[in-house]
């Protein structure tokens, strides 16, 4: 409590009794909210520099491009999870859900032989439907999101196995499909399409979150759901759509991983949800709801993949890698905490 004192003010800013905001103090407040992202970005840069110093191979364009590529799947999952987490919920279904949507892509393209675009759409749609079901469970049946999405995680895992016949579905008949993720559309650049798709998805998510109605309601539901409802907003319906939106990012992740592996792997995905949530939280989004940003999530996802890849490239033995990742995550979040140092006791 006593640490409020550290929020010591600049004495010159005497309050105007009925101001609508002085320009300078407004600037301070905005700067502060940007700081958080700057800080996370700084952690990221520091990590890159450290790994680069230890092993210069880390900084080769090829490796950096690989790191970007390895960010894509967790990154896409994290984009969707950001929305859900800002509402104060949690989404555990993204990992196996991704696996289910990739199977749906497989069914569409390989089993049904439909055109590529239809397959992509099917994947995204499958994700959206899954999100919709999550949303219905959470908002209309009022099942806590942890339970609803945990159940969905199990159901998706089972369905992925059932639908695929417990074996991978390959995309050999759709030769263009693996180009979707791995092709290099921009001549001269070694960065594969998947990375661009991820960044475009991130920009879209960012715009939705900060500039549209559904984004605003995402924040306000997370800030105070009851107050939002009493302000005449149909919280249940919006929440349903927010989960649906989140699900479609999972769907996109399913499409990309299928394209990257040139196969739909029904058994994988478990465990990805924790990584995605970690990326979101490292990016400064609060699990209490109401706060967060897409930029933060992108940085968080990058931190995770830089870490994983960096530890491998500097040949840290595998058993020590997880120890190191754990410690660095703690450090990154702690530095962030230090900066934000506010009066509330963290949960």
């Amino acid at each position: 409590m006593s640490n409020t004192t550290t929020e010591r003010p600049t004495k010159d800013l005497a309050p105007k009794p009925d101001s609508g905001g002085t320009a300078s103090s407004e600037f301070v407040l905005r700067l502060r909210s940007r700081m958080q992202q700057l800080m996370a970005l700084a952690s990221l840069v520091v990590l890159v520099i450290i790994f680069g110093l230890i092993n210069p191979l880390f900084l080769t364009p090829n490796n950096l491009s690989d790191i970007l590529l390895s960010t894509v799947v967790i990154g896409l999952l994290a984009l969707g999870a950001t929305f859900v987490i800002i509402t104060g919920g949690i989404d555990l279904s993204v990992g196996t859900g991704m696996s289910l949507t990739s199977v749906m892509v497989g069914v569409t393209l390989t089993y049904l032989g439909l055109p590529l675009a239809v397959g992509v759409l099917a994947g995204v749609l499958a994700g959206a439907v899954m999100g919709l079901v999550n949303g219905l469970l959470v908002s209309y049946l009022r099942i806590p999101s942890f339970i609803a999405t945990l159940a969905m995680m199990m159901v998706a895992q089972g369905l992925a196995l059932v639908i695929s016949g417990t074996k991978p579905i390959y995309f050999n008949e759709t030769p263009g499909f693996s180009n979707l993720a791995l092709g290099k559309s921009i001549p001269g650049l070694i960065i594969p399409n998947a990375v661009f798709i991820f960044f475009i998805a991130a920009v879209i998510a960012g715009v939705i979150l900060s500039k549209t109605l559904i984004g605003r309601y995402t924040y306000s539901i997370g800030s105070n759901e009851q107050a939002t409802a009493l302000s005449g907003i149909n919280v249940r319906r919006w929440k349903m759509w927010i989960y649906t939106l989140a699900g479609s990012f999972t769907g996109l992740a399913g499409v990309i991983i299928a394209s990257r592996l040139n196969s739909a792997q029904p058994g994988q995905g478990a465990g990805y949800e924790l990584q995605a949530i970690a990326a979101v939280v490292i990016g400064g989004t609060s699990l209490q709801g109401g706060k967060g940003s897409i930029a933060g999530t992108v940085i968080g996802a990058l931190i995770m993949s830089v870490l994983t890849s960096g530890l491998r490239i500097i040949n840290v033995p595998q058993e020590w890698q997880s120890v190191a990742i754990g410690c660095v995550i703690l450090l990154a979040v702690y530095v962030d905490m230090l900066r934000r140092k506010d009066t509330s006791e963290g949960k």
Partner: protein
Amino acid sequence: MENLLLEVDGVNKSFPGVRALADMQLTVRHGEVLALVGENGAGKSTLMKLLSGIYAPDSGSFRFDGSNVDITGPKIAQELGISIIHQEFNLMQDLTVAQNIYIGREPMLGPFINDAALNRQASALFEKIGVNLDPAQKVGELTVARQQMVEIAKALSFDAKLLILDEPTAALNDSEVATLHAIIRRFITDETAAIYISHRMDELKAISDRITVIRDGEYVDTLDTEQTTMPEVISRMVGRKVAAQIQMKPVPKLGEVRLSVRDLSTKALLKDVGFDLRRGEILGFAGLMGAGRTEVARAIVGADRISAGTITLDGAGVKISNPATAAELGIGYLSEDRKHLGLMLEADISQNIMLSTLGKLNKFGFMQDKMLNYIAGEQIQRLRIKTPSMHQAAKNLSGGNQQKIVIAKWLVKDCDVLIFDEPTRGIDVGAKEEIYDLLDELAASGKSIIMISSELPEVLRMSHRIAVMSEGRITGFLERHEATQEKIMDLATRSNRGAVSV
């Protein structure tokens, strides 16, 4: 000087962008009740938070009972004998009343908590101070008013020398206020004193010995209650002369019936509630704590499920299943519980004000942020919300200013029927008048208003007609010209006499 329990001298405290206290001073004598008054955001709560160890001062000194003290935490304050009832509740909703009161001081039986003794202790305390609470009930199940009683009981359960009450009566109605005053008087001895913060001027006269006025974080004056008049206090508070007695406007000619409620019942409490609300009418709702006024409002807007009853709007029957439907139909509800049901505390002011109106401010799916900030800025000016910026988080505002945000939220929404539940809770006298004028204006422009209030003078001042509730029923309607405090109290204390129909 002689016989001082507390001396505050030269205290400064600033927050980012806000100078909350500037060279503040204050003295409290043994055996007195000192009232502390000032406009919303004047710095009253901040000063009290310094005294209770929640904030640390930037500079300045505190002398308590003759020695210099450094109050570094709530525990230190407790040990010194300073006990505080905060403006905002600090209760654990999932614990029982007794568990809340004695947290940190549980009677033990070996390694175990002696819950029986705990409840006995609490019962004894309630008996001693004359409040009426069940020690074993979960606090989360209590009404706001009863939660306030828990806070009071908790503060009194310490052997405090100095009792600080920060707007303890904002959630109470007159009879409960009287109870509280009796409790305070019993508390005061030659060894003790109390600081009493309130915006209800009539209370100051009743309870205080001296009145300290502060303005914009600065000390203004201290007056003897006996020798001063309220208009004098108010003029020092706001720094200008205020009209002594506001003229009550005559009841205007009312329009046709807009909202008509019949036989409204809920499983929990309400029984056959029925009334009509006309265009341009302000219908006041009076009643004792728990009478069911809030529940009527919640039932109408669909926040609570109704078990029976019909609602007719502009002649057509409507089915309102949630507050969103109500809002679409043009019915808005301002909750009495701003912290839990009104505000997004972490979000900024403009987001809070614009929450109910966001749906109208998007073009091709994108939010019109310029427009949004413009409207929010207008409201901040109009209600004189004291803040360095519209991007300040709501939690950083003073209580009264927070209440203004909630009001602003419904002013921008432009509903035809507005239900205001305790709209002036925590708002200072000057601003209160402004809000009254605002409500009058709204009514004059053809809006229909239901105003629920526990302050009888306010109900009498504002309402064109008054509905009085008791135990979930409407026990009577009073026209403005016939309404008096006595008649209202009579109706409010009736029980089991059946509902009065419209």
